[in-house]
């Protein structure tokens, strides 16, 4: 593993903050796309890094840190989503899609922007499967295991998501 990760693992908080700077955008992107709720995504991003700090002790460098962190982020978001014991202070809010406007890095005639907005408007189950499969590259078997659904359900949700997204984009 890299020197930075090794130092963070030994408890060096400044090393961990450097890891945060390097990976926060990636983690936030996953959380935001899965949750479609800015304040929730911000909280979850913080949760992910707090969990990462706690679990670094068991990280042995068999995978790249970024990969490990990404998996952790997906697990944290899905666990939170499934939890029946969610804090009631969470307020259901309509997705704030203006946040995606800052994310456009290339002049793509707004293609990427529209898609993120459309993804945010998907129903939660379809959104999760689309993001995990088409955006993040997970396989249906993994998604089914992560979400506690049948593989067939994951496939159906994916096709539903793609249909809804295509309709939204071609409107």
């Amino acid at each position: 593993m890299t020197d930075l990760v090794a130092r963070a693992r030994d408890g060096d908080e400044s090393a961990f903050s450097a890891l945060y700077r390097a990976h926060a955008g990636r983690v936030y992107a996953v959380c935001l796309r899965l949750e479609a709720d800015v304040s929730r995504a911000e909280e979850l991003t913080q949760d992910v890094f707090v969990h990462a700090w706690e679990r670094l002790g068991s990280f042995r460098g068999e995978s790249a840190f970024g990969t490990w962190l990404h998996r952790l982020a997906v697990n944290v978001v899905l666990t939170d989503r499934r939890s029946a014991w969610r804090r009631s202070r969470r307020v259901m809010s309509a997705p704030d899609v203006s946040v995606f406007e800052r994310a456009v890095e290339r002049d793509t005639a707004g293609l990427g922007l529209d898609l993120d907005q459309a993804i945010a408007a998907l129903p939660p189950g379809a959104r999760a499967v689309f993001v995990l499969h088409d955006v993040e590259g997970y396989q249906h078997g993994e998604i089914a295991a992560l979400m506690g659904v049948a593989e067939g359900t994951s496939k159906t949700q994916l096709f539903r998501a793609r249909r809804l997204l295509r309709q939204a984009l071609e409107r």
Partner: protein
Amino acid sequence: MTCDVVRDLIGRHVRSTLAEDERGLVERHAATCAECREALADARALAAATALLPPSIEPARDLWPGVSARLAGPKRRPDRWRLAIVALAASIALVAGSSAVTLWLVRAHPARVAATTTPAIEAGYVNATESLMRALDAERSHLAPATVATLERNLGVIDAAIAESRAALAADPGNRDLAALLWASYRQKVALLQQATRLVERS
């Protein structure tokens, strides 16, 4: 070529990673099947846009201070002792007739009879399940999402049974057999939650 098989190939078809014969099979099927043709068109329409999605998005505000504040204090491993104590207390607080599925350890300590009226007995079970759920809630990051999903699914089954038994008992309050069935469902709930705490403890 069934639709299921073709649909599994759609993703790779759009990315042009299918072998020639598989590609042909997909296209021939899509020529005759409207649904699969649409599914293929959906995937094609999205492929370019999905590839352009930025992999990283900067949060609007700096989230590091919120993280740093929570790092204060020693790195936390699952709090095995607290969980074990809560699980044990839940067992001991239950009235006589305790389920034989509680920990072997508890079998050596027969449950004290804490109450004899139905509301009091129920309160005992509700306290036990609430304290177990609170303890588990604090540790749920140490459980895989699929495990949490299984746990919640089965808790749902038990809760439905509890609701039915309660309603029946409310309509027939003196009925000891109905009460026994209600306590049996509550014991199932306690046992399942204790089992979940053991999954965390042993991780």
